[in-house]
């Protein structure tokens, strides 16, 4: 079965550094998402992306965050200047336009 792939599985970064989380969505999917899960809390929507632009973003997704689809396969989440509170599991998801999203395994981001 096709799957969403995320790299790295775990990233440790110093506060103030930029990080890029990478995702390879399922190839024929059109809608892409980032969610995050702070330890012990619920999974929260960050941003959705369709037709090469952001279609919706949450209040969490401020100017420190950006997303990009630099080529036909990758979908990236960039955090410009990481804060301690950005430590979380970040999930990428994709959908072909039906109400069924496929999630990646997640990237655990630890900001120290």
């Amino acid at each position, binding site marked *: 079965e096709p799957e969403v792939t995320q790299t790295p599985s775990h990233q440790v970064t110093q506060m103030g550094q930029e990080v890029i989380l990478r995702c390879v969505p399922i190839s024929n999917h059109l809608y892409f998402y980032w969610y995050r899960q702070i330890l012990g809390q619920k999974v929260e929507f960050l941003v959705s992306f369709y037709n090469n632009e952001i279609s919706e973003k949450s209040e969490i997704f401020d100017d420190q965050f950006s997303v990009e689809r630099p080529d036909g396969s990758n979908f990236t989440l960039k955090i410009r200047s990481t804060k301690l509170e950005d430590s979380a599991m970040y999930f990428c998801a994709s959908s072909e*336009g039906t109400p069924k999203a496929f999630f*990646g395994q997640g990237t655990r981001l630890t900001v120290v």
Partner: protein
Amino acid sequence: AQSVTQLDSQVPVFEEAPVELRCNYSSSVSVYLFWYVQYPNQGLQLLLKYLSGSTLVESINGFEAEFNKSQTSFHLRKPSVHISDTAEYFCAVSAVRGGSEKLVFGKGTKLTVNP
């Protein structure tokens, strides 16, 4: 806007016992309903979904959930659990609109199946 409430943060049960994980939602528009499962150190996997039609939906591993519109609930049940069902279970909703809408998740219920 939608919201999801999972009333139980942890549910311990013995193997072969029945289990019910509760989920209630709030929405001003029609929604699709989902249960996702997260096994230890893994990502989110779709367990089952309600889109339309029969209000009772089933998964391949014996779980079922029933959409109850009047009670705005989508409880997850299994008549006999296995050790391997130990995981965290998330209820989620998305609004019924064109395109593909974001998911709104509950806080999750940790199911622990003991021998």
